[in-house]
């Protein structure tokens, strides 16, 4: 199940959030060698603030299996702050969120990774449809870029890839439309009931 974690329930889910930050350090710093801030055994940066929202795949026994961070595009976020060269006109607005820190826990084994990925994809779409988000922006290296395209949703390039920080990075826009769920279904990436129902999503919508 994918849990929505934001300012309202972050404290209640402290162990899970900590687990996520630890896995992010293991992946982004230890494995991928990203030059991002580290605090002890946790990776977190200036965007991991009170307004950041997370979708976290949680396993009852093993904790954090994978996650993404969602940032408002009306406040400083990666694309307009760190990677403005990847896109000429950064798409912003109340109905656009930026997806970043897509992370799969090192404890994911074998094909489990794919199931976690599909749960995150489905949760991103469900969350967007429930709250009126029309698009996500995303900066990705080239192999992740192809992986995102293969999920079945409708993507558009926002700019050409650029060599930055030792990889080729590019920005894209993922459009969320009523038919997106059906597109995921056809791509085989839809996971029924991925997003754990939280009443306040419905209130917000």
């Amino acid at each position, binding site marked *: 199940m994918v849990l929505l974690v934001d300012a309202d329930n972050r404290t209640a889910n402290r162990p899970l959030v900590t687990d996520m930050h630890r896995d992010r350090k293991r992946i982004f710093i230890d494995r991928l060698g990203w030059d991002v801030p580290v605090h002890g055994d946790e990776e977190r940066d200036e965007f991991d603030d009170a307004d950041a929202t997370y979708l976290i795949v949680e396993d009852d026994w093993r904790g954090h299996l994978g996650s993404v961070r969602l940032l408002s595009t009306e406040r400083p976020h990666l694309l307009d702050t760190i990677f403005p060269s990847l896109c000429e006109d950064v798409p912003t607005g109340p109905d656009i969120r930026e997806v970043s820190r897509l992370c799969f826990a090192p404890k994911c084994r074998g094909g489990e990774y794919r199931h976690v990925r599909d749960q995150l994809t489905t949760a991103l779409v469900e969350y967007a449809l429930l709250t009126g988000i029309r698009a996500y922006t995303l900066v990705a290296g080239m192999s992740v870029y192809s992986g995102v395209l293969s999920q079945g949703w409708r993507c558009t390039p926002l700019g050409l890839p650029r060599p930055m920080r030792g990889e080729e990075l590019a920005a894209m826009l993922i459009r969320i439309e009523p038919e997106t769920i059906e597109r995921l279904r056809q791509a085989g*990436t839809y996971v029924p009931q991925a997003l754990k129902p939280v009443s306040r999503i419905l209130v917000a919508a």
Partner: protein
Amino acid sequence: MEPTGRDDGLVETVQQFVDLLERTFTLADLKRHLTDIVKDMGFQHFSMTHHVDLRNGNPGENVALTDYPEEFVETYLTNKMYTSDPVVLASCHKATGFRWSELGQIITIRGDSRQIFDLSTRAGLSDGYAVPVHLPGEANGACVFATATGHSLPQKRDFMAQLVGRYAFEGARRIIRKRDRVPKPGADPKLTTRQRDCVLLVARGYSNNEIAEELGIRPRTVEDYVEEARRRYGARNRTHLSMHAVFDGTFSLNDVLR
């Protein structure tokens, strides 16, 4: 590298191509659109494939689309030259795009690659840029853009080619999926997490006792998990079961052999 302001409309061209892909429902149309944008980029040919054995002429769920000269394709497939094709081999080692001239930096060029170079030259393919596409649960693939003899590799089109290759590959996957109505795994995982753990170890050559030890469960439980997994796939034995699980992407060959 100068960061902004000199894209010369390249992004818009790719965006239009991506929009066009949304309205493309046959491989013939995709081939036509690709041929057009390939020329726009300054290349003359393209080849887009999953790296699997394509000789039987029925790639099924796999992508195989090219406008390379017929002579090349015929000889290439008949002689299984993909097994020694340095572009294919290098694609498996790279996440990002590369020029043919960089092949020697990525892999050791084997002696039997010579015949590929000869064949390419005879077929009038002089140079190229390859965009590897690696998706979990699928064979590795690539979209390759080639120049014809007498043309030089277009300047400053590598990044555009990266995007065109990746979106085109996805477009091909989508068309093939619809055409074949292939039920994809993933929406409905065939095995439970525990069954998958066991089958992965089966594929790695573990006995039930060894699996039990590795996972900290009883051998009898392992036996149940493996038997249930075998039943779900309708597999004949442990080998057949492992092959099924790799084939539908429950885990990859890399998971088994690492």
